[in-house]
């Protein structure tokens, strides 16, 4: 009974201030003001012309679209003020097609607003519950069904059914367990190890400690990275083993994660943020701060890589380095802690 019964009248007695069905008071309707097009045939004809013009323009735009698509080579550029240099073909077909759709929409709305019937009606909602008889019927039929099934009396059936339902989730747990393989020790290990040379990222050259200037930054990877990448056919090891090497005045070093982990002010840190694993190499050489671009975690490399700002919970892992006989930087050992973001098993 929620359909409109009186398309033009006062449905549900809205004018009386009471809804007939619910008895709830409805807000009073404002007096109806007829539109210009309703009383003035000239205005109506004008509105009609406006709507037809929009639909007509839309047709023109479609024709223009086809012409532009065929005629404008898709290599020609055009300079439009403010927007800049753009591809003439793309701009033309996008503009014409977009305008064609827009004009149909605007025309339709204009038509509906100006010329289609203009009535103000109140439509009442029916109550959100089922009628009482229906509710009682459902209740009694449920009770009758329960009694007829013998669920209460036949204990063995009831218990075996409950048992079966209780065991039902077991396969889900087994399948969930099988989603692995579990990461094992892979999250804890990188390919850094004792004696592995540090090489420059992208050019893979060994790094002489004496070549690094004060305030210098080098994005580095382990020497054996390319080999391992080739073997494993993925970038997982790069994602874990990337480091940055910086040099600062040894007098500036407040603390390190291990004794003599630097080499004459040359320090190596993981490049992987301990928050969510973004590559972090925005090193500001004056403050020795390392900033992560993702969430602005900031690590003080002159003070054990401690977090000085941002959401990271752990300091940046430091790689202990030294030099070989020829003065090239090598790792003293692998990282002594997992690099990158925290994970479940890390504890």
């Amino acid at each position, binding site marked *: 009974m929620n359909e409109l019964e009186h398309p033009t009248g006062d449905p549900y007695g809205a004018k009386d201030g009471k809804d007939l069905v619910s008895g709830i008071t409805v807000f009073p309707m404002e007096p109806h003001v007829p539109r210009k097009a309703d009383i003035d045939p000239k205005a109506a004809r004008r509105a009609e012309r406006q709507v037809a013009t929009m639909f007509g323009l839309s047709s023109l735009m479609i024709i223009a679209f086809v012409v532009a698509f065929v005629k404008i080579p898709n290599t020609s550029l055009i300079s*439009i003020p403010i927007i800049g*240099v*753009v591809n003439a073909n793309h701009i033309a077909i996008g503009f014409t097609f977009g305008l064609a759709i827009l004009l149909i929409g605007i025309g339709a709305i204009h038509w509906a607003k100006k010329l289609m019937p203009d009535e103000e009606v109140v439509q009442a909602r029916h109550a959100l519950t089922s009628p009482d008889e229906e509710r009682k019927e459902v209740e009694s039929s449920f009770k009758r069904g329960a009694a007829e099934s013998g669920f209460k009396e036949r204990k063995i059936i009831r218990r075996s059914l409950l048992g079966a339902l209780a065991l039902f989730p077991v396969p889900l747990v087994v399948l969930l367990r099988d989603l692995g393989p579990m990461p094992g020790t892979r999250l804890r290990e990188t390919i850094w190890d004792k004696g592995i040379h540090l090489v420059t990222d992208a050019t893979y050259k060994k790094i002489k400690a004496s070549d690094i200037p004060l*305030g*210098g930054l080098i*994005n580095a990877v382990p020497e054996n990275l390319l080999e391992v990448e080739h073997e494993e056919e993925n970038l997982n090891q790069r994602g874990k083993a990337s480091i940055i090497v910086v040099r600062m005045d040894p007098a500036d070093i407040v603390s390190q994660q291990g004794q003599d982990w630097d080499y004459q002010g040359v320090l190596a840190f993981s490049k992987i943020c301990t928050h969510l694993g973004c590559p972090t190499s925005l090193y*500001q050489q004056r403050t020795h701060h390392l*900033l992560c671009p993702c969430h602005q975690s900031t690590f003080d490399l002159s003070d054990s890589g401690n977090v000085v700002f941002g959401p990271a919970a752990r300091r940046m892992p430091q790689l202990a380095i030294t030099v070989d006989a020829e003065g090239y930087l090598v790792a003293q050992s692998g990282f002594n802690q997992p690099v990158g973001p925290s994970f479940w098993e890390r504890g």
Partner: protein
Amino acid sequence: MALNRRHPAALFAVLVVGLGTTGAAYAAVSAQTAPKAAVRTETQVEQGKQLFLEGCSSCHGLAAQGGSDGPSLIGVGSAAVDFQVSTGRMPLAAPGVQAMPKTPSYNEAETAALAAFVATLAPGPAIPTEEMLNTSNAEVALGGELFRTNCAQCHGANGVGGALSQGRVAPSLMGSDAKTIYEAMVSGPQSMPVFANSTLSIEDKQGIIRYIQELQKNESPGGFSLGRLGPVTEGLFIFIAGLGALIIAAVWIGAKAK
């Protein structure tokens, strides 16, 4: 009724005009505090020393040894001086977290003299020669890889710059010439780390410069580049312009016809 005579935006307009005038006046005055050319002496180094004592020593110390207001310039080399002075970063307009580029206070000859003087203090990275900046044979692909490895984290993948911490910024490289980029790499101005020729060779640097030059040539085939900053400006634009247009359309659709 007297209150209503004032336009609602009047207070705002007064504020904007007042703040703008004050700011412009301050900038005009402070930018002019750098001393102009002094008496020319016989040699470039002597002239540089003269200019240094007049314009730089108040912060960097009479012997360029540095102090509480400015770092030591001993060993920074001519590249650092040329970078800082020719881009207008030095002399500082005002103390702050970072010197920003502005109209240079010294002409080319004066800048060269200052650089020559500072280079005599101790060995340091020198102004690159024309040959070092010739990128016509540079490997642009390698340069791109090196740029993404070493530069893009701060200057952005498009080289348009980005924010650092505590108000510092990595400037846009879109207006930088080869010499400026080279000098920045070897001297490590301000927050930027040093990328010495020993660890990033001259060929590598030429590749990077060539790559930046190619970036500078890039048109924006889609029209508005919105600063090429990615999702921040693009999101803001569509949030304001796109949602704004939708709201206006919704209001128009919902409004009663007259």
